[in-house]
């Protein structure tokens, strides 16, 4: 029924971006996104250009992961968002919980050479509720000043405070931590989630985390990761690769990313159920996922585009002038022990993982 309704709407509305009548300024579209360097890159690549082309102003709201805000929205107490930029795991979960509207991929624009969107996006980019627009990765970086001698280059080193001392600024979520903990036993990435699905695997992972328990500084907002790493006493931080790139290359901080064991994932656009501007939201998603828009974002941040036509056009950073290709998570040299985040697994196990993680936190 929902699908049918969405299709009906499509028939009624023109699919190509309509030019709004000049003069009457439309209500702004509210997009919930991640702040920091990431939001800045989106502003440059999407928001300003979209407003210029359609006349629709964009307002951003701070979002830091999870599905709670959307749940509250349904209950009538949540924020008034139209579009939300979620990680694939949360996006799928929100979709399953009915917190996002159904999305018809036929809205999306074809590649410049005419390749339909359905074939231009890399496999697994579409969901019932939206489309993935970039590949980003959870990595850990270290402060070069903390290790004048041997430098860490493997996940194992994160769990060896004896050899690589100093604080570890880690995100207060099981994501990536469990993966890194288990991979540090030599488990190949392809086996990770199967083993984490067993009681024994979970126990091993937490036992590894016990080793660094007293060295952890927790963070929740991704923007804090970079800030924490700059502080004295902290020698490692987990975080999104784009932000570390920004800190190291654009701002010149002495940070280095350890690509070993990177946990890559995608970000996806979804339209919040309850939004009053569904058509405009769709229009925005069509605009922001056009090949030229995606290429534009790679000029500002090191996240890989999900369209093949865009990946082929990755060039230099807009201001720093460095070649962006070696900084992309998808660069082949970073893929030897890369972990593709199993978002389907996370979508269904999230509550129990959090519960277990909280129990571990309390156990310290």
């Amino acid at each position, binding site marked *: 029924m929902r699908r049918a309704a969405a299709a009906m709407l499509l028939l009624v509305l023109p699919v190509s971006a309509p030019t709004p009548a000049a003069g009457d300024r439309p209500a702004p579209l509210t997009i919930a996104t991640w702040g920091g360097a990431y939001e800045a890159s989106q502003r440059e690549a999407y928001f300003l250009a979209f407003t210029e082309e359609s006349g629709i102003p964009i307002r951003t709201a701070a979002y830091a992961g999870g599905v709670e805000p959307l749940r509250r929205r349904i209950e009538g107490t949540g924020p008034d968002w139209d579009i939300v930029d979620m990680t694939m795991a949360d996006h799928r979960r929100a979709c399953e919980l009915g917190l996002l509207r159904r999305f018809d991929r036929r809205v999306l624009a074809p590649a410049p050479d005419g390749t339909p969107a359905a074939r231009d996006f890399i496999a697994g980019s579409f969901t019932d509720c939206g489309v993935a627009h970039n590949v980003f990765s959870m990595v850990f970086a270290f402060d070069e000043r903390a290790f004048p001698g041997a430098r860490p280059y493997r996940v194992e080193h994160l769990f060896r405070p004896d050899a690589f001392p100093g604080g570890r600024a880690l995100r207060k979520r099981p994501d990536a931590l469990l993966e890194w903990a288990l991979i540090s*036993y*030599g*488990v*190949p990435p*392809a*086996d990770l*989630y*199967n*083993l*984490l*699905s*067993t*009681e*024994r*695997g979970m126990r*091993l992972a937490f*036992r590894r985390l016990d080793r660094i328990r007293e060295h952890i500084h927790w963070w929740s907002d991704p923007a804090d990761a970079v800030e924490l790493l700059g502080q004295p006493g902290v020698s490692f931080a987990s975080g999104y690769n784009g932000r570390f790139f920004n800190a190291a290359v654009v701002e010149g901080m002495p940070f280095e990313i350890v690509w070993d064991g990177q946990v890559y994932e995608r970000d996806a656009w979804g339209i919040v159920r309850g939004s009053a501007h569904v058509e405009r939201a769709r229009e925005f998603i069509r605009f922001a996922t056009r090949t030229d828009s995606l290429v534009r974002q790679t000029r500002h941040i090191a996240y890989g585009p999900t369209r093949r036509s865009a990946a082929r056009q990755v060039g230099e950073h807009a201001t720093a002038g460095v070649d962006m290709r070696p900084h992309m998570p998808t660069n082949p040299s970073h893929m030897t022990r890369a972990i593709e985040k199993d978002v*389907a*697994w996370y979508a*269904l*196990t999230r*509550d*129990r993982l959090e519960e277990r993680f909280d129990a571990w936190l309390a156990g310290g």
Partner: protein
Amino acid sequence: MTALAEPRRGLLGVARRAAVVGVLGVLMGGLASLAAVGFVAAIDWLNDVLRVSARSRMMAGDWRWLPLLTVAVPAAGGLLVGVVKRALLLADRAPGPPDVIEAAQRGHGEIRARDGVPSALAALCSLGSGASVGQYGPLVHLGATIGSAVGRLTPHGGRTLGTIGIGCGVAAAISTVFNAPIAGILFAHEVVLRHYSLRAFAPITVASTIGFVLANFVFGGDTLFRVDEVPRVEPFEFAGFVAVGIGGAFVAIAFMRAIMAAEWIAQRSRLPVPLRPAAAGALLGIVALWLPEIIGIGKETLRFTLIPEAFTPAELGLLLAAKIFATALCLGFGFVGGSFSPALVIGALFGALAAFGAALLIPGAADSMSAYAICGMAAVTSPVIGGPITTILIVFELTRNYELTTAVMVSVVFSNLVSYRLFGRSMFDEQLRRRGCDLTLGRDQLVLDRAPIRPYVSGDYEIAHSGQSPAALRASLVRAGASEAQLVDAAGRYRGTITLNDVLAALDAGHDGPADDLASWDIAVLRADMSVLAALRQAESDRSGILPVLESADSDRLVGVIAQSTIVRAYRETLGDLRREEHAAP
């Protein structure tokens, strides 16, 4: 003449042969490999849907029906297996690798699709519902069924090509699922064909390579286990690997004996045959509520044995016993599947346990636990399948590590040495021996035992009729230039042999009774339904040159005679066929 047996000279002939070998190898290997990929994918899918795999169980979470499902799925799967076997299989025993070996050894090269397809279906039900059985046995049988069918359907194919097809199918299946093309070739030769002929080697190599190519480049194969990091092995640890080998042999023997004991118990239980797997499945599910590791193939457990911190020695011991119990239960009570993958898990658990033991004597042994686990895996598995070289090659191709393979080699050799002495060559050979196909003396005996003597029976002999006088008999013997006559009664039944010597001596002594009195029953009398081997044994007890041949074990009607020299010719010719098959040009 078979399609592969026409050696033609000249460039054109060479090109034609290369093309035939290539096309047949690709066809047999490709089909077997596709079937293997499909089979494994179907098992994985079923395991996810039915909440057998760890991942799907984790994703099901605290779902309250999960414990019920854990018991119901293997029980229902068992019921289905029972029904499939009853409805579709001719025997109540599903065929497997032993039948493949038998077909290749007997040289008829025929594995009927009528057997192969229902057997694969029953195996799919077993593995899909989480029975503790292996997937490689059914895969080997499926590959052999396909290869045999292609071989026999090829124009001028016949027996030989059927046998080569079996080798190709088996090699492709192993190569596909293990990502190990060399091990595939060796498995086909070491375990199934048991001889190296250039004629079979070429197409089998092509088939195995095709399996590897399909698995790697087309489907992006998922292998049984991955070993990313291989520990350094210290020289003195080789003593430990010898011990793992010897201990592994005892574990393997315990495992094989447990399966046979379970079969024995099942046969003596009052449970109706079709319900036996269901009962085993239910019991398996109940135990799995406490020990979820025992259901399914056990990939996760296998992987954990490579991590030193994953188990305590007590857990390893418990799981080792539980997995042997679960597999014996499932196989003994009629689930359809192999014993190879459970043997891998059991061996790995044993190896890890051995590492704890070694750590008491050798400092640092616990750090190289994965080496011990892999040695244990190979030490237990190789005597079960009877393939020491194959096992070594599988480890080599999976780990691509020379030191580790050397360690495994030591364990495997000692394990096979012990197991061969105390048990026999393999589980398969033991199963075959129990149904009267003894391979311990090699293929020659088996083929001789199957080759009938009947074609060599001669109708050129002298008959003495009951009541005939010795004088008349002498006359007819002299006329025919024969030295003996076979006495038959009115119904044509053999009554004894009368030699010319006896006749002459009787006449000299003035014997005037009928010649019947002179007849003596030849103790080396042959039956026409005997094999060449039996005839040969029988002839050893006789010193005369000509042996009477009677119709069958329950009919004394004389059908002819056979000279001892003819039996020797039969022996030579039968083995000659075998040698030609084994030594023919590619």
